[in-house]
């Protein structure tokens, strides 16, 4: 029977099927961080259960870390304790930890791919919904709750019901100034925030085939924002080339063997999906969001829709926007370039390319937060940091930062922030903060102009 990419990876990881019940799925790699793991470690400790496969677990500190002065002790007491707990738990259980300041430290979904931990055909989980990012490699990767973190600790497996399959096809030629972030914001704006619930999504079409791995990660990252547990893109030469030579990637003959296997993974031509959508790349333009969920997105040149719906109106009230208005020329005081969605080297190249020779607007506080120590080093190596500094920006240190505002990087009450992150929920970036999601290009342009501009007029 014809199989999808998802079927192939899933089926090869099923240990057992319970009659009238879930399946036992084997997990190849388990990524953990300081916020969603401590209660799972406690659970095992209390029940006297050892960690089954500590060598298949990798830890980083990212959610709750400062993005300045990382060499100093963490000021916030609770944050410091949480980080200490992670170190202690990893040490006691023989788990590799890339702690704050380590050359491999970074946001879990940035550091694992760049170290070659993420590989095609794997199953990967992490107590973080944006684990879908790793699907860019043709990996089944999804976020789990802390009880499930404990389950994987105890057994290296999870009990799951196989999700249904969904394919999103985007074909055609993307316009200038349209980035992977715009593609996924466009798709979510068309499909809504729960269209993918109960499904695993595959992205197909020449638009994704022609994307870099960084771009594919941006797309797969936001699968959860349309409700899908994960998103996948078929592994190809771009994927193999990216994985090759990375720290934990297979080497030599092993690598060739793996590639031969990875080449068998793409969906069969006759494979059937439970749901399928098609979009024309030419219809996509630079996108922004105007509301309080990622499905509330429009082309930057469009006006806010006029709907009579209580949830919609509540959302606009929170954002202090009116139905039917344009966001062009809205003054913006905060810009955030970072998060597991858009904090990779390409994102900073796009931003640097725009700000080169320009100045940051005086009203704007801009936070440029690389996704990892390696991205930070690359920014410096390529001279991008100099461009940012000359334009009046300051580069911060890696972490999740203002994406979820668990650390001190909080947007003040009532302020707008044009952000390259993934969620514009109420209070996500700080109590009362108003988030506008966009690509690194739109974010950089906003930082320079101090307001939202029609970027489509500035592309030459």
């Amino acid at each position, binding site marked *: 029977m014809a199989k999808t990419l998802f079927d192939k990876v899933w089926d*090869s990881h099923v240990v057992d099927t319970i009659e009238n019940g879930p399946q036992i799925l084997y997990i190849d790699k388990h990524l953990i961080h300081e916020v969603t793991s401590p209660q799972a470690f406690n659970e095992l400790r209390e029940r006297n*259960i050892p960690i089954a496969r500590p060598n298949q677990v990798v830890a980083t500190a990212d959610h709750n870390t400062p993005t300045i002065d990382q060499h100093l002790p963490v000021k916030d007491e609770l944050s410091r304790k949480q980080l200490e707990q992670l170190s202690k738990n990893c040490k006691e259980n023989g788990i590799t930890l890339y702690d704050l300041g380590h050359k491999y430290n970074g946001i879990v979904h940035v550091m694992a791919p760049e170290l070659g931990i993420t590989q095609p055909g794997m199953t990967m989980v992490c107590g973080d919904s944006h684990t879908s990012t790793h699907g860019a490699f043709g990996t089944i990767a999804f976020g789990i709750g802390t009880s*499930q973190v404990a389950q994987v600790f105890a057994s290296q497996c999870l009990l799951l019901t196989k999700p249904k399959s969904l394919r999103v096809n985007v074909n055609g030629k993307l316009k200038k100034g349209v980035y992977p972030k715009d593609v996924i914001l466009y798709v979510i704006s068309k499909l809504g925030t729960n269209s993918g619930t109960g499904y695993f999504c595959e992205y197909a079409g020449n638009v994704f085939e022609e994307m870099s791995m960084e771009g594919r990660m941006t797309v797969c990252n936001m699968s959860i924002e349309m409700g899908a547990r994960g998103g996948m893109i078929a592994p190809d030469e771009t994927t193999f080339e990216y994985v090759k030579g990375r720290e934990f990637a297979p080497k030599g003959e092993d690598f060739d063997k793996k590639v031969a296997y990875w080449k068998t993974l793409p969906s069969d031509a006759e494979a059937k999906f439970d749901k399928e959508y098609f979009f024309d790349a030419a219809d996509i333009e630079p996108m922004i969001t105007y509301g309080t969920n990622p499905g509330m997105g429009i082309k930057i040149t469009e006006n806010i829709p006029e709907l009579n719906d209580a949830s919609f109106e509540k959302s606009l009230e929170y954002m202090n926007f009116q139905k039917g208005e344009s966001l062009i020329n809205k003054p913006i005081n905060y810009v955030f370039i970072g998060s597991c969605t858009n904090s990779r080297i390409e994102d900073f190249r796009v931003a640097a390319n725009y700000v080169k020779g320009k100045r940051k607007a005086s009203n704007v506080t801009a936070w440029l937060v690389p996704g990892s120590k390696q991205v930070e080093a690359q920014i410096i190596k390529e001279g991008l940091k100099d461009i940012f500094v000359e334009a009046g920006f300051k580069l911060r240190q890696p972490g999740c930062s203002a994406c979820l505002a668990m650390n001190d990087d909080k947007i003040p009450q009532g302020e707008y922030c044009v952000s390259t992150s993934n969620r514009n929920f109420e209070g996500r970036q700080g109590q009362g903060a108003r988030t506008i999601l966009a690509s690194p290009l739109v974010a950089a342009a906003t930082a320079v102009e101090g307001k939202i501009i029609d970027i489509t007029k500035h592309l030459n």
Partner: protein
Amino acid sequence: MEKFTTLNSTAVPLDIENIDTDQIIPARFLKATDKKGFGDNAFRDWRYNKNGELNKSFILNNPTYSGSILVAGDNFGCGSSREHAPWALVGYGFKVIVSSFFADIFKGNALNNGLLPVQVSSEFLKNLMSEITNNPETIVTVDLEAQTISAKDGVLSEAFDIDPYKKTCMINGYDDIDFLLSKKEAIETFEVEKQF
């Protein structure tokens, strides 16, 4: 995990759609390393104003409404995978959440914490929401064994789905760890045999 069979309780109407886990428990309260105390901060930024005063217009602060059943709008629990959300809801005193749609990760997390997500039709949700809003003393019955939710002596009644395995776990108070550990041998055999 606590066992769950039947619950009779008044219910709280929270008629808002797309309630994400950042609203259920904001990220700044995720710094604890145990599961306790999250109930105090459930829906924190809706329950309290910026200056720390109680937001009297928010339904959970209205003394008319109480009970261990929360009836919420469509697509409840979307967003972050934080299990702190069900910990907060359970800590606050809820045992059942009723909605016309639940986000995947939240649903799994809730079931792993003895919090029953009851998914009903949009029409039933609308009727139930209106009933409990207008008559706060209405007792809602959730019978897990029979997989039914009802109120007003059965005038309002609907069956709901639940994975049979998770149902057994809820009724007996088992969790997945116990089950997975019983499969240790099969898992080890799989590891030896797997060829990628």
